[in-house]
């Protein structure tokens, strides 16, 4: 009772229709909502996204007019702001009002819509029974029944006169008429499933010809699926910025997976991002390669996103709050890559409640915790480690079967060559750790510290010890293959967000990122007899170490309501080493580059015609120490809301890339990749120009979008030893080839956002061409070129059950095959036979397609809060044999083609539990 009283008083205090309460600072009793403090930076976000976010991350229940709110761009930086104040900020100047009911459900309404429709919403809890004398008897009463938060007209509501048998049901337009109402002081009762029943007390002044009655949604009785879909989108493809996708990792479990819910894999279900890449967690965005996609985690750059040969990404979904992917045309704030940006934000953790949770699947175990250390200090920690379960071994062995014949016999059988006795095999694993501390010492400052460490230890080694019969002879014989690939990232950042004034905010991040990759593939043998021991070592050693120490500051200054300036500066000190040696002695490549990349940016956002038109010109300037040149990157973005639902977006931008990841081909031992810095000649600074335009039509329930893009690339580098005449090993500078390229395409998307059934359908028509004179005089399709991609994602929620299915179709990637043969008589008199190949990438692999399905059953605690699920996921459910690549062998002068396929049908089981 006491709680109800407090709540009611709070409602009166907080939510008078005009919300004047906040401006007048009237004393009121504390509301439970006062205890929730918000620290977020919303930068030109559609207001519906803001409300979604607040619901998702602060546990609020907000019901609002999605269509209207999506047309309002909201820009504000909350630092420790209470919910009532935060709400007031969202509604002021936006022609909105809000109410909060006894269940602390917040209703945000568009005020002007009432006026336009000339509805007088009658609130049952605001009007008391009229005690005067009736003035009109026996009259007809008519009007509409509407949802009081969205103004949606409601059909099927039962409208009756209390104490009589008179009544009617509202029609499909929400209209009703009751004839012969006894008097103008009777009580009208309205009821509808899903809404709180309402009593309306008539007065002589009541409009009898147009009485519109508003009903509150009953939050606790609503179908959960409706609320869920409304509050949290797994994927949000709309927004004020073109080519931007937001992903909420909390909902990732809905999507089928192959062992682990995965952020990067889920992005591959989106239009414009190639899906037919099971062996890479890196994103191929609009024809770009993974190294052209900048990945930022809490402010530091991540240079390696793969676990286990790329089947899983390095990011633990339990530690991530939100991921934003810019597919192109990104703003001046971002730079250094040609194609796209993936910006990942870690969870802050609750300052109020301790939480602990974890997942266990056939691939890995995952544990996370949220610890409220003080009122102002919170911590999140998550750790994940693979275990040698069936899926890990399945993929590990499959990959090693594919990658090299020498490894084939070793990995699958668990025995060394020849099945010798005493063979021992090493174990492989991956792990990652995420920690984040968030400290809010004042209302104006937030300090964060984020740490990430992830590593893969792929060990395919084996050793053979002295057989018993030799040991008896006093002879020792040990040999084995060490095949260890260790790679990973360590990154950390310290951030300071400062709200200098209500209009000026800053975000400064000092970060460090280290990527390392060590390949050690040697065969060693030790032969010993009394007094004499011989040791031999043959193989390769490869080490790559990248260090990135960065400082950046971003400022956001809302000069006026229609003009926002963004500016900042950045500096990165790169230090990249790469060595490649053979047999422990011959150092073939020894590259060490260090350089400073520094600069600044400025962008100015203009809002015209009541935010209908948003124009954002910008420029980014960079100075690269190696080339001692300045690079200028102009950017321009435009967003025009033609109507509340229909908007046109366009972007233009120029981009430079200074650090490149190169693939070093190695057929016998498996290819490996390494990062190097651009230089003046061998690996020039590459550049790209983006042109993007698109239309989107969005209602509260649906989104339809189309976007077209053209991207030109210059000074892109490929590395191949195929054309090298150097037989003694790698010549560092000889094997890099510089070329150009372009990518163009059009993407169509239709998304259903609301209801029990949600999902999307997308189709992409694209073309990615390269031009490298060494390969061909003409343009040829790039390796990652996929012409047609069709994706469909469907999710259905039924009580505690989630059902989901995805289907992907991608036309085949290009490849090159043998075309002819010839023999050459060598100087020693022998004849060497050669196979020539077709023109570069003129053939196509078979089309790729795959269906995945999943079913999850959720567990609820006593408070009916979701605390986990058990789920089964079926990957490639109809066991499509999708071709990864082809191998060719010559047998009796016949070329035999072998398809090396991607994963076939793979089921997975996941159990996920958390306290809260």
């Amino acid at each position: 009772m006491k709680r109800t009283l407090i709540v009611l008083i709070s409602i009166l205090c907080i939510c008078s229709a005009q919300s004047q309460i906040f401006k007048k600072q009237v004393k009121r009793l504390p509301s439970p909502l006062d205890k929730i403090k918000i620290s977020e930076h919303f930068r030109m976000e559609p207001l519906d996204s803001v409300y979604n976010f607040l619901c998702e991350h602060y546990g609020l229940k907000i019901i609002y007019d999605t269509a209207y709110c999506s047309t309002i761009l909201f820009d504000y930086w909350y630092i420790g702001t209470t919910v009532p104040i935060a709400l007031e900020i969202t509604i002021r100047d936006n022609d909105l009002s809000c109410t909060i009911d006894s269940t602390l459900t917040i209703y945000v309404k568009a005020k002007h819509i009432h006026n336009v429709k000339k509805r007088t919403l009658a609130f049952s809890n605001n009007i008391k029974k009229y005690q005067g004398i009736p003035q009109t008897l026996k009259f007809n009463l008519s009007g509409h029944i509407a949802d009081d938060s969205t103004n949606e007209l409601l059909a099927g509501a039962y409208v009756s006169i209390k104490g009589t048998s008179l009544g009617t049901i509202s029609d499909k337009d929400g209209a009703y008429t009751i004839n012969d109402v006894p008097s103008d002081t009777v009580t009208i009762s309205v009821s509808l499933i899903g809404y709180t029943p309402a009593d309306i007390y008539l007065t002589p002044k009541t409009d009898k010809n147009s009485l519109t009655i508003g009903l509150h949604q009953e939050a606790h009785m609503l179908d959960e699926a409706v609320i869920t879909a409304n509050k949290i989108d797994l994927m949000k493809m709309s927004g004020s910025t073109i080519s931007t996708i937001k992903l909420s990792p909390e909902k990732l479990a809905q999507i089928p997976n192959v062992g682990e819910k995965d952020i990067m894999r889920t992005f591959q279900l989106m239009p414009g991002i190639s899906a037919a890449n099971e062996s890479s967690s890196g994103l191929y965005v609009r024809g770009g390669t993974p190294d052209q996609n900048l990945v930022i985690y809490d402010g530091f750059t991540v240079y390696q996103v793969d676990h286990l040969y790329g089947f899983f990404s390095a990011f633990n979904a339990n530690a991530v709050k939100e991921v934003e992917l810019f597919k192109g045309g990104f703003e001046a704030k971002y730079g250094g890559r040609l194609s796209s940006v993936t910006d990942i934000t870690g969870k802050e953790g609750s300052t109020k409640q301790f939480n602990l949770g974890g997942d266990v699947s056939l691939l890995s175990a995952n544990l996370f915790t949220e610890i409220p250390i003080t009122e102002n200090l919170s911590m999140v920690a998550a750790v994940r480690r693979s275990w040698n379960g069936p899926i890990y071994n399945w993929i590990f062995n499959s990959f090693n079967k594919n990658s090299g014949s020498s490894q084939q016999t070793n990995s699958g059988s668990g025995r060394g060559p020849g099945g010798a006795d005493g063979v021992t095999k090493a174990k492989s694993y991956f792990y990652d750790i995420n920690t984040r501390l968030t400290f809010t010492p004042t209302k104006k400052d937030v300090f964060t510290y984020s740490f990430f460490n992830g590593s893969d230890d792929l060990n395919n080694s084996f050793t053979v010890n002295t057989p018993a019969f030799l040991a008896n002879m006093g002879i020792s014989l040990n040999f084995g293959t060490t095949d260890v690939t260790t790679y990973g990232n360590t990154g950390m950042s310290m951030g300071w967000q400062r709200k200098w004034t209500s209009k000026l905010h800053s975000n400064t991040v000092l970060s460090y990122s280290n990527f390392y990759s060590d390949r050690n593939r040697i065969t060693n043998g030790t032969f010993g007899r009394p007094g004499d021991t011989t040791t031999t070592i043959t193989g390769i050693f490869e080490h790559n170490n990248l260090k990135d120490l960065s400082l950046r500051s971003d400022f956001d200054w809302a000069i006026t309501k229609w003009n926002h300036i963004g500016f900042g500066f950045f500096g990165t000190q790169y230090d990249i080493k790469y060595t490649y040696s053979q047999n422990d002695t011959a150092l073939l490549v020894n590259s060490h580059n260090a350089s400073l990349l520094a600069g600044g940016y400025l962008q100015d956002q203009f809002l015209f015609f009541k935010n209908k038109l948003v124009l954002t010109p910008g420029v980014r300037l960079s100075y690269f120490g190696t080339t001692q040149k300045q690079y200028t990157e102009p950017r321009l973005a435009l967003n025009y809301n033609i109507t509340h639902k229909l908007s046109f977006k366009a972007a233009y931008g120029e981009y430079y890339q200074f650090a490149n990841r190169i693939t070093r081909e190695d057929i016998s031992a498996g290819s490996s990749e390494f990062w190097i810095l651009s230089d003046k000649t061998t690996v020039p600074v590459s550049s790209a120009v983006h042109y993007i335009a698109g239309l989107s039509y969005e209602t509260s329930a649906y989104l339809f979008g189309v976007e077209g893009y053209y991207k030109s690339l210059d000074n892109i580098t490929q590395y191949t030893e195929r054309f090298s005449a150097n037989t003694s090993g790698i010549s560092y500078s000889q094997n890099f080839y510089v070329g150009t390229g372009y990518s163009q395409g059009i993407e169509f998307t239709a998304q259903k956002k609301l209801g029990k059934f949600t999902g999307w359908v997308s189709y992409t028509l694209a073309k990615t061409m390269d031009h490298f004179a060494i390969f061909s005089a003409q343009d040829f399709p790039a390796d990652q070129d996929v012409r047609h991609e069709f994706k469909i994602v469907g999710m259905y929620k039924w009580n505690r059950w989630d059902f989901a299915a995805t289907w992907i179709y991608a036309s085949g990637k290009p490849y090159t095959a043998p075309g002819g043969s010839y023999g050459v008589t060598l100087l020693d008199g022998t004849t060497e036979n050669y196979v020539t190949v077709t023109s570069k990438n003129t053939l196509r692999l078979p089309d790729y397609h795959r269906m995945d399905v999943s079913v999850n059953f959720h567990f609820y605690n006593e408070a009916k809060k979701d605390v986990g699920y058990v789920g089964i996921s079926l990957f490639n459910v109809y066991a499509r044999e999708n071709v990864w690549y082809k191998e060719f062998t010559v047998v009796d002068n016949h070329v035999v083609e072998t398809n090396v396929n991607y994963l076939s049908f793979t089921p997975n089981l996941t159990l996920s539990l958390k306290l809260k």
Partner: protein
Amino acid sequence: MKKSIVFILFPVALFSCKKEVSLPEYNVDPVVTAYLSPGIAFSLLLAHQQSTSSETFSGPSLDSLDITVTSNDTVYHLTSKGNGVYTDSELILRAGNKYDLQFAYNNKVVTASTVIPLKPASVTQSATEISIKQVTSSTTTTFPPPAQADPVTLTWSNDDASYYLIVVQNLEKNPIRVIDTTSTSADTTLIFRNRPTISASEDINTRSFTYFGRHRIVLFHINPDYASLYDNSSSNSQNLSTPSTGINNGVGIFTGINSDTLYLQVDKQ
């Protein structure tokens, strides 16, 4: 039991399927074979490529084309001798000279260029005679095998790190095998070679000798395009490419070579 579970969980394995396929029409670029050695007349061999579904690697010869070679601003028109052979008896090759090949084929202009390297200089050999123990059926097998004899080391001048190749040939009419057991295969070759090197010295391992007697050691000074013929070709579709060649719109080898010859006697120990 554990295996059974895995089996049930993964009834469909990731696997490879092999099939012979009809590949696209083979490349039409011609195959050139020409080693330009100083002191002899110019000669080259021209052939078609062969389809990969053919029984043999080498295709039929290619005759009656108008082929020119340019050297020192003089243009020579080669004579087609049949069986793909083209020569010009007046064009005597010289070390250090550059030779440019050109002809039209299949609406493309085929070109190639090479320089004949200089003769290897300051060549030395560590031994002119070595002894190796013969292994026969009656030889007692010891474990481990006895240490091998010291290798024969060749040195030469190589200031510019250019490529050299060592080829060793047994000159005996009736050579005696080093390993002469009943299980020794009959077709052991009389010639062996090392891999091309850019160093200024190279060892010839004594275990490489399969016959006793007099041997000729030819130290070739070669160009990089010839050295690349020894590179392994890729065999998968992710990085398959045409073998290295210095010939535009053609394949094969058009390269200058030079050499020095040494001799070595291999005796029974």
